[in-house]
């Protein structure tokens, strides 16, 4: 099928970043093509834990995170569904006094960002959260954090973008992409030629290939979550839970299933695919029983994994390319992009229309890896 498309912006990768960017750009009056090699939101955006969490993020992510915090309650109006978004609160446990001290230090560090953290320790913990076993010395609650259904959000953003006039090309792998001097030329799928003024690289775990294509190698590695889900059970866990150190996280969805994760899955021979790790799943299950004794006897119905991108400093890459005019990057969310992604979409639209972001993103510049790459090259 031969087809020619000419748009203002082409977006490679229909995850939550790419699909929310497509919608934001359509709202700004730009013509947009959103291209995905599979289905929109079927990779990391669709298979992640579903935490809509600000607590625990490094301070440099919080302005972006706060911006996203304002977007989540508006999903119904923006994309037609609320995606099961709930401001349930996010409770982060400390197993030891040392861990609790870290939670206290974090609360102090982010005091000015308006997260409204509440520290709860000792006997007050079980009084306040009676469903929790006394396996923690304390916890930090972020009352307005929550969770949502990751399977639904990105497809709904992509659908809303399409209804708003974006061209959405699924099952359309990008085969070639090149800068032409006054824009870009993309060859995708089965003979589709796309010309655009600006290009967004939001290809998740596959973004490093496109960055390298424009002579901007990045130290992206892949991580694979290891998730466990139970059968539906009576509603009892009112918050999304995490632990200092990150070895266990869990929430109960509206239907009653406990969705829990921790540890890492394992890549298959083809590293585009992965499997949950039985070892990781076992330890998640053990921890779940310890924390929630009422889960003894519950049945686990499914494990799952997925493919996510991680950067060495725990922060994503967001912003303009340093080699190629008109190219924007947004990837490498390190297993924590679900909450911030809708704000990243708006930031990308601002970068395209205004050339600048109203939310600080300097910490996420791709240039921070240039020196590292150069040093590595020199040492070889």
């Amino acid at each position, binding site marked *: 099928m031969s087809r020619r498309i000419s748009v203002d912006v082409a977006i490679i990768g229909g995850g939550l970043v790419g699909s929310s960017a497509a919608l934001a750009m359509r709202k700004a009056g730009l013509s947009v093509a959103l291209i995905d090699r599979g289905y929109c939101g079927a990779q990391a955006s669709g298979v992640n834990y579903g935490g809509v969490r600000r607590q625990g993020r490094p301070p440099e992510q919080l302005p972006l995170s706060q911006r996203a915090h304002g977007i989540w309650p508006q999903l119904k109006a923006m994309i037609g569904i609320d995606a099961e978004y709930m401001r349930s609160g996010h409770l982060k446990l400390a197993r030891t006094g040392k861990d609790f001290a870290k939670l206290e230090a974090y609360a102090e560090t982010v005091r000015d960002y308006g997260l409204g953290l509440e520290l709860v320790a000792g006997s007050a913990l079980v009084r306040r959260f009676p469903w929790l076993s006394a396996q923690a010395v304390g916890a930090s609650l972020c009352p307005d954090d929550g969770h949502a259904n990751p399977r639904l959000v990105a497809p709904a953003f992509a659908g809303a973008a399409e209804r708003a006039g974006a061209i959405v090309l699924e099952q359309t792998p990008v085969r070639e992409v090149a800068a032409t001097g006054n824009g870009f030329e993309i060859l995708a799928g089965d003979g589709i030629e796309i010309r655009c003024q600006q290009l967004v690289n939001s290809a998740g775990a596959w973004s490093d290939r496109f960055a390298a294509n424009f002579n901007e190698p990045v130290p992206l590695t892949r991580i694979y979550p290891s998730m466990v889900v139970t*059968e539906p059970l009576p509603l009892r866990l009112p918050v999304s839970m995490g632990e200092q150190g990150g070895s266990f996280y869990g929430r109960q969805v509206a239907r009653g299933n406990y969705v829990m994760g921790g540890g890492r899955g394992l890549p298959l021979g083809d590293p585009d695919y992965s499997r*949950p790790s039985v070892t990781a799943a076992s330890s998640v299950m053990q921890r779940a029983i310890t924390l929630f004794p009422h889960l003894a006897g519950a049945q*686990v119905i499914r494990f799952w994994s997925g493919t996510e991108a991680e950067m060495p400093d725990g922060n994503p890459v967001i912003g303009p390319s340093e080699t190629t005019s008109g190219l924007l990057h947004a990837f490498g969310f390190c297993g924590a992009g679900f909450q911030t992604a809708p704000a990243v979409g708006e930031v990308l639209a601002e970068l395209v229309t205004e050339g600048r972001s109203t939310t600080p993103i300097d910490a996420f510049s791709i240039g921070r890896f240039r020196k590292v790459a150069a040093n590595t090259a020199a040492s070889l």
Partner: protein
Amino acid sequence: MTESLQPVIVGAGPAGIRAAERLVRAGLRPIVLDEGQRAGGQIYRRPLIDDGRSYRSRYGSEAGKARRLHEAFEAILPAIDYRPETLVWNVSTPERGNQLDVLLAGVHRQIGFSQLILCTGATDRVLPFPGWTTPGVYTLGASQTALKAQGCTIGDRVVFMGSGPLLYLVAWQYLKAGARVEAVLDTAPVTSKRHLLTLAIHAPRIVALGLSYGLQLQLAGVKIRYGVRPEAVLGTSQVEGLRYRRRTLTGEAVESIACDALAYGFALRPETQLADLAGCRFRFNGRDRVWLPERDALGRTSRSDVYVAGDGSGIAGADASEISGELAAAALLEDTGRALADAAGLVAARKAILRQRDILEQAFPFPDDWLETVPDETTLCRCEEITIAEGRRAIAAGSIVEINRLKALSRVGMGRCQGRMCSAAATELLSGACGTSAGEVGRLRAQAPVKPIPLGFGGSVEAEVRS
């Protein structure tokens, strides 16, 4: 420590037992893992406690085969490592080594294998209709299991509905057991039965048996109807009857029949999740409208150390299962340099049965207009409580053309059964909505655990290697 892995056989039905027997004959000591409490599988299922019934009364015309299979198993029992009540819920992919995750008496164990023969069998293929989740509605297979293993019936006045040879067999077994069989409602048109004439040339015994079941049912006054489509189960908290339409010479008739239990099914569907998790390549089988692990005539899959046999590798019945179990073992022995397979006779016998299945399938066809006849408010996926209307809405809203996408966006197939029960219907719904064939919408990817496992499954993982 030197570790010497043994071949592992999953399933102790006709295929698994014959595979084990063949390996034992070659001097191997296979590990045989079976979910059941006693070996025998489904069709030759044995009761937990001897209830005094003879083989003849329990297995009818198949008594001789059942006895021979059970005796074969007892004979090899000292020479195999047999683990009943063992759920195999995960298989590692080749790059992660040869390992099974199993649940044995509530404890999680990991068992290594040198080769794997999957004899995982089949379950009833079901399709939704109004009231199919009402208490008192069973599958044909479950109603037969109740009779064989527990010595009880699913009700006092039972209606049997569906398509497939099991329909008449189970109805006849219930009649023999003293239950009142109110009706046999065949969803296939009476004209489809003409194919039995062709079948009689190839398999006269099967046709003679089938005709005798039908005749005895009729002589006992059991109502037999063809071209049936159910309209509704009567009763809400318990089955009180069934209203159905049927094709007649002049058009259509709507009839009701009172009963306190309904057994139904549309032939069988293979249990293929372990082959999927093992990384075997799959191919769509148009006749059975299902994806099957690719296999050669002996049961070799695309993965060199994994073999498939029995109905789990494609529905062919118990006789073919015994043959294919032996064939898979012969292939394993040949591939490991122990003995030439020398299997031409068995391969030919299995092929002859497969040809008969083709004809049988025409005599008991799948109702491919089913989803069009079922009202929108009917439950499609009972684990997740998704109606056909919700499925259709999800397909339209998401422009869905692929079944894993349907699962992600609608939760169909995401629940306890992981699509084992609803994927036949979901496939029909999606391919119907897309105007494509069932094979074009893809297949649900298997995820471990293939069946639910307890959250606190014993804590420690016990790695186990037999030398």
